[in-house]
């Protein structure tokens, strides 16, 4: 029973995640919503990927711009393994395909890590970016391993399941993703509590001091990079099972950037930040991209706002409230928040309107699309919508600056009280 008490968060999450797709269950046809399941599977895979990225960025302070290389190479390995199993050359249960991806990712993590972990900080960032470009270019060039532009296709129905599951439906795949996501997340969580995990923190904080307590920072970085490759590879293996194809865009800079954006927006400090960030980024990516050409712009702006005003990410913002909650006065923030809400909404709507107007005059027009809100087509060449958008943006910004002052006073007073009560360390 103590096991349940200690791990109730994980168990609760598991139950919620298993139940959630049923909200979208089509009872008349008796089947799940394929879109929701694929979306959630994607979130699961990207969450593992983001967590593995956080092993570098959050834990070891290594800012990689080529992390997708490990995801993609793991995916290619898994795809080849699946095809070998299909051909009868080797035997492997479907459930263990992600492990094959993981081992592939680990292998490349070690080889590439041997090159890149000689450096840290800025040089590390530049070199991982170069390496990412190298692998993406190679992926288009070499047919044998990467399959060129067409990529490598697989058929995930292999009849080798340990549980007799065929993996013909998205639901079965989703369950597999969920299982691996939990295993990987738990392993990564445990890894933070091992000597290597702690020393990785130490080299992040002060790599020179780590040397003077007996550790070689380069080896720490290399091992951390290799392990991170293992988990990224697991994500890659799952990716292959979901989409049944792996192409060069799994190793691309855009995928690497996704991990970076997710981890930073969510918060690199804690363990749950990257998961939260992944959910936000994937939802923006899949949801907003249906409506707008500019989803990456919104993610980029969100990212910059986070870098400038909330370096702790979303999780950091939430945790800032903990001291006030502890002294039981969170309620006093309700009014200030309520007052800041309308101008914030105004700025946001003004900004979105402006971006969409711009996007529809150029890209949308080129694609023959019309800008419509609730069925009303808006003429993007008329001055009125532009003026409204601009006015909302400017007035909202001025208004929010006024509100911000009051909010800040209230906030500072509450934090001050919390400090006096010894809640804030």
């Amino acid at each position, binding site marked *: 029973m103590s096991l349940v008490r200690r791990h109730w968060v994980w168990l609760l999450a598991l139950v919620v995640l298993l139940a959630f797709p049923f909200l979208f269950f089509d009872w008349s046809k008796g089947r799940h919503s394929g879109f929701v399941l694929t979306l959630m599977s994607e979130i699961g895979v990207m969450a593992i990927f983001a967590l593995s990225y956080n092993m570098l960025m959050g834990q070891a302070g290594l800012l990689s711009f080529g992390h997708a290389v490990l995801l993609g190479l793991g995916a290619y390995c898994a795809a080849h393994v699946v095809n070998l199993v299909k051909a009868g050359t080797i035997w492997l249960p479907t459930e263990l395909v992600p492990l094959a991806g993981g081992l592939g990712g680990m292998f490349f993590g070690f080889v590439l890590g041997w090159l890149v972990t000689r450096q840290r900080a800025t040089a590390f960032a530049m070199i991982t970016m170069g390496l990412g470009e190298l692998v993406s270019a190679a992926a288009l060039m070499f047919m044998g391993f990467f399959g060129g532009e067409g990529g490598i296709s697989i058929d995930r129905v292999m009849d080798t399941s340990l549980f007799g599951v065929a993996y013909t439906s998205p639901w079965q795949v989703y369950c597999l993703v969920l299982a691996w996501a939990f295993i990987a997340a738990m392993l990564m969580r*445990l890894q933070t509590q091992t*000597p290597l995990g702690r020393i990785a923190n130490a080299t992040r904080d002060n790599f020179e001091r780590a040397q003077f307590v*007996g550790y070689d920072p380069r080896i720490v970085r290399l091992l951390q990079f290799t*392990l991170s490759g293992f988990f990224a590879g697991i994500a890659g293996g799952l990716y292959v099972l979901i989409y049944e194809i792996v192409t060069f865009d799994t190793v691309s800079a855009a995928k690497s950037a996704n991990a970076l954006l997710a981890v930073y927006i969510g918060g690199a400090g804690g363990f749950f930040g990257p998961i939260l960030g992944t959910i936000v980024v994937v939802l923006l990516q899949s949801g907003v991209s249906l409506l707008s050409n500019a989803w990456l712009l919104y993610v980029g702006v969100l990212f910059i706002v986070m870098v400038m005003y909330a370096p702790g990410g979303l999780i950091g913002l939430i945790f800032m409230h903990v001291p006030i909650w502890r002294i039981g006065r969170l309620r006093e923030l309700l009014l200030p928040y309520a007052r800041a809400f309308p101008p914030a909404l105004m700025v946001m709507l003004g900004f979105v309107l402006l971006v969409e107007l711009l996007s529809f005059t150029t890209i949308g027009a080129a694609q023959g699309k019309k800008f419509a809100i609730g069925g009303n087509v808006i003429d993007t060449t008329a001055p009125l919508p532009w003026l409204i958008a601009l006015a909302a943006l400017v007035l909202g910004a001025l208004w929010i600056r006024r509100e911000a002052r009051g909010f800040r006073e209230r906030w500072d007073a509450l934090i001050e009280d919390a400090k006096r009560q010894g809640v804030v360390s």
Partner: protein
Amino acid sequence: MSAPAVELKAVTKSFGRTEIIRGVDLSIPRGERHAIIGPNGAGKTTLFNLISGRFPVSSGTIAVNGRSTAGLAPQEINRLGLSRSFQITSIFPRMTVFENIRCGLLWSQGYRYSFWHLLGGQKKLNDAADALLERLKLGDRRNLPAGLLSYAEQRALEIGITIAGGAEIILLDEPTAGMSNSETDAAVELIRSVSEGKTLLMVEHDMSVVFGLADRITVLVYGEVIASDVPAAIRGNAAVQEAYLGTVAA
């Protein structure tokens, strides 16, 4: 007859054209508490950086426990049983005080780069870390991020990380710099107790600390040793007085 704990022979160090260390010979027997004093810019910290492997020597040899440290990285010298502290506090600011100490312990307890031990279950390790925290009087700060400690507490933690690994040779770089009188007294007691039965080499400006702790004192001026003797002899040494007080003895 065992080899001295630390032995320097004709060590020099130049940065560009400036020679900071100009031929230093120094031998520190095991178990001695040894202080290095000298005016600012004499090269004391540089000497520490050479011994601990932070910089390579320009010429000459350094041996730790009879073994040459030429070409060894700092971590390898550390594993020979030599540990150092820094003049400018060097801790792991985002980790808790307890984690800081535990990181200092890990290598010496044989965990190496393990990613298969869970630290929560390593009772012996954690008890050792907690015991050291008590000795440092940082027990009530255990779970605070080290970056939030007061200056004196950070200095104590710095010493704690340095000695955690149980090194036989301890190098302390101005351990009491910037402390108030009462803090200095506490630090001296701490240093005395942690260096019990070990070789201590320290750089210090506070003469009461130096004369209270050291068995032997070396005076370094412009990269050269002008005297190395027991405290009483140093006190009466004319060359030392000249270097320190600027009076012309002759």
